């Protein structure tokens, strides 16, 4: 029987792949979004910075910054779900030089529940349905309290073709 791989080796491999995905997308770096990983679960973190403000009087986050954060979280979750399955099945080399295939947004509906405060924000996306071609994702964002969402969204996405079609 094969001995299990050391936990650190597995973590390093998974984090390397996630890092490769998020660093490949310029807009994620522009907004300063980071991802916390626990197993396959991702939490997106948007550290507060003054450039994200939409109402200088209230120092409230711009609705567009919030929408961007939610859409980035959804797209990364969808891409990561595919990459994770490929990684676990040994179909992807995290050291390889492969750009991820990003799903295309079909539509995205944002529900602004309260104004975004000048603090860090967090978001998690849930894939409600992922078929061969289309996916439906719900995403929730909060700041200080997990149960007090400040925004949520639902989006539909066109999934990339599973095999190389270039």
């Amino acid at each position, binding site marked *: 029987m094969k001995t299990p791989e050391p936990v650190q080796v597995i973590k390093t491999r998974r984090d390397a792949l996630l890092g490769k995905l998020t660093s490949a997308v310029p*807009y994620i770096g522009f907004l300063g979004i980071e991802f916390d990983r626990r197993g396959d679960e991702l939490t997106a973190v948007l550290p507060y910075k003054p*450039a994200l403000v939409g109402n200088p009087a209230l120092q409230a986050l711009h609705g567009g910054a919030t929408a961007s954060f*939610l859409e980035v979280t959804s797209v990364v979750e969808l891409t990561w779900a595919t990459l994770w399955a490929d990684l676990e099945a040994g179909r992807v080399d995290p050291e390889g030089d492969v750009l991820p295939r990003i799903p295309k*947004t079909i539509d995205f509906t944002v529900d602004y529940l309260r104004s975004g405060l000048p603090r860090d924000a967090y978001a998690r996306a849930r894939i409600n349905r992922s078929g061969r071609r289309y996916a439906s994702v719900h995403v929730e964002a909060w700041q200080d309290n997990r149960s007090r969402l400040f925004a949520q969204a639902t989006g539909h996405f066109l999934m990339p073709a599973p095999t190389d079609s270039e």
Partner: protein
Amino acid sequence: MAPTDRTKIARQFIEAIPFSKALNMSLEEIGEGRAVISMPYNEALVGDPRSGVIHGGAVSALMDTCGGAAVMSHPDGPIATATIDLRIDYMRAAAPGQTIRTEAGCYHVTRSVAFVRATAWDEDTDRPVAAATGAFTFQRANGGGKP
């Protein structure tokens, strides 16, 4: 308030928004519940490194800002507004390298809500890249409701 004052105040307000400045948005037209805002192509806003296409989130931000500007310029409207909800349909990828331009208008206002539609184009103005509908808070400037 005279319409020209309102347009001036709304313009100053929009041009002072930090996130809109970070995305290099510029207000091209504003007045009477309608606004046009453009956003030049910027590699920092790319969402798909394979194609160089701008991230949908940046287009959302443009349409949200333009919707808010349209509400603020409405003759009965407030000088500040907040988005209640915004739905965007992405009809095609915007061409890499091209400026994206959005036009938004209030198609109906009640005593507390403004309903807005917006469309975005790149340099090919025959084929929109995205369309949006949204609801924005609308507190009438005179403080009262309809008589």
